[in-house]
């Protein structure tokens, strides 16, 4: 029973971190209509930033979080218009071209990181690494609790921004109906750049947290892309609220399969679930997708 509770808690904590970047991923789909294959690449890059700040500069890993947001936010802001142009270009199939572009970006990031840093695994050192927290019968690593709290703070700020500010309203309006939003005076092009920047920044922050909890190497990017896809399919593409639920579910499924069946089966279980959901309910189990 203790193990059962502990697994549940671990799963929820990881799910919380996953939720941060999947919310942003969904937002990007809603606004840009692009499925970003590169999402795992941003996560890993964030992790590496944390690693270099912690081991190169001797700072605490958590200090890399704001740096990651600013740095990757800027990169995303510059990349956003490129993606927007491809998605809205007059080539024969802009949707596929945009998908291919992010796929190429992901491959480029992965290859570049493998070339630069090799296959070695690095982890982000923080003041809390190695400590653990005991709550009654359950013991969890303190780092996971801290990471989940950071993630919750990020997610809450994002939701406040989306639902309590004028600009958030513009973003939600654009995701709901881009033409009407444009008619109401929203500059879709600039908004797309901002959303992509926001998304890249948040994803890199989640990457720092993931690097602190697990560790990073260039090959794990694929895993995070899978997570984002899983959540997107479960919640329905573009559904932001559903992403939180689906991400928590993903964390729990992964934790239980790893604990009770074996960690080599966890990806298989995730893929199988993803596949079944796609077959049974292509618009997501919450039926809110596009």
């Amino acid at each position, binding site marked *: 029973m203790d193990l059962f509770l502990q697994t549940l808690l671990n799963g929820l904590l990881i799910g919380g971190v996953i939720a941060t970047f999947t919310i942003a991923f969904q937002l990007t789909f809603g606004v840009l209509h692009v499925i970003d294959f590169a999402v795992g690449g941003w996560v890993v890059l964030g992790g590496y930033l944390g690693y270099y700040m912690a081991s190169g500069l001797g700072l605490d890993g958590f200090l890399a979080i704001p740096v990651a947001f600013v740095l990757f936010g800027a990169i995303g802001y510059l990349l956003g218009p490129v993606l927007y142009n491809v998605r809205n270009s007059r080539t024969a199939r802009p949707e596929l071209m945009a*998908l291919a572009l992010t796929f190429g970006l992901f491959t480029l990031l992965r290859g570049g990181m493998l070339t630069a840093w090799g296959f070695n695994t690095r982890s982000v050192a923080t003041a809390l690494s190695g400590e653990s927290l005991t709550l009654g019968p359950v013991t969890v690593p303190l780092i996971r609790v801290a990471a989940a709290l950071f993630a919750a703070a990020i997610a809450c700020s994002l939701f406040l921004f989306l639902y309590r500010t004028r600009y958030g309203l513009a973003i939600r309006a654009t995701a709901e109906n881009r033409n009407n939003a444009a008619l109401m005076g929203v500059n879709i092009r600039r908004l797309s750049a901002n959303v992509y920047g926001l998304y890249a920044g948040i994803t890199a922050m989640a990457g720092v947290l993931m690097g602190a909890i697990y560790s990073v190497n260039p090959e794990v990017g694929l895993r995070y892309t899978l997570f984002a896809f899983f959540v997107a399919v479960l919640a329905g593409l573009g559904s932001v609220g559903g992403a939180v639920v689906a991400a928590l579910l993903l964390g729990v499924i992964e934790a239980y399969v790893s604990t009770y069946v074996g960690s080599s089966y966890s990806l298989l279980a995730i*893929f199988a679930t993803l596949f079944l959901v*796609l077959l049974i309910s292509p618009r997501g189990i919450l039926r809110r997708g596009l």
Partner: protein
Amino acid sequence: MAAHAIRTRWLGFLFLAAMLVVLAVLPWAINNYWLRIATGALMWAGLACSWNMLGGYAGYINFGHSAFFGLGAYSSALLMNDPFGLPFLATIPAGMAVTALCAVAIGGPTLRLRGAYFAIATWAFAEVLIQFATVMDFTGGTGGIGLPPFLNERFFYFAMLVAAVLTYLVTWALFERSRFGLKVKALRDHEPAAEAMGINTALVKLQAFVLSAVAASVFGSIFAYWVTFINPKSVFGGDITDQMVVMVLLGGLGSLWGPAIGGVALFVVNRLIWMNWGDTAFYIAILGAAIVLVVLFLPNGIAGLFARRGGNGALAKAAEKLVRGGER
């Protein structure tokens, strides 16, 4: 105009015949090292063509095409080994049958999904197969599985050559010269309209998907016997799909010869990098950069550059669309 068209057509046939003759005598003109590279180039040209059947002609991006390559490879490997011990040539149709069954099972439901969901579903399917082959015992797990060695480079060269020529012939006959091809292109350009014209789009998509899967499985079978040892990463790996996608994008999406140009060009680059630096991580970065650059600056690929006016080149079509003001 007619006379001109006939003359170009004859020139085309002459060029093709000359190329086939060159390819047929090539094994006696080069050493074994280069023969292996030529064999690989033929394989990739064929694989890129098989991906293009669905990706280029029907407009459905398949990010899990390596699944079918791997199914062919594993079918051959398992059937040639002990309890079965079948001869190699008998395992090819067996692999094709297994692949066709899987393709129908996968394609039936997923081809109803929108493009993006289909891309994710196929990708997930390929990853499931990797994981499955890794955790199962009968596939040899991570360690992989060996095949009876057969060290005759010329045999494999000609096997790949025949497979590649057949793939291109089938593509030409079915996608460029038949009603089926017109249906596929119609649903690519506007699916609801194609359906309204009475085309059974679900069936046509499934046919194109199975065709492309079966073609990939043939190359998988030959590849497994050629390299005599396979493991989940080497035949199901995402890198295989990545390469096919890049080759087709580079060569030209939805053109007959684009995949051949892209496939051969990229494979030769791959080998040159391997020879000079012995490093494949760098090649992945180059693949990525190639996709990005092609999407941004050459959306119709190399073949698009050579498209004849009024021909079926993508460039010509794009220009036509621009002239008409583009309905989008």
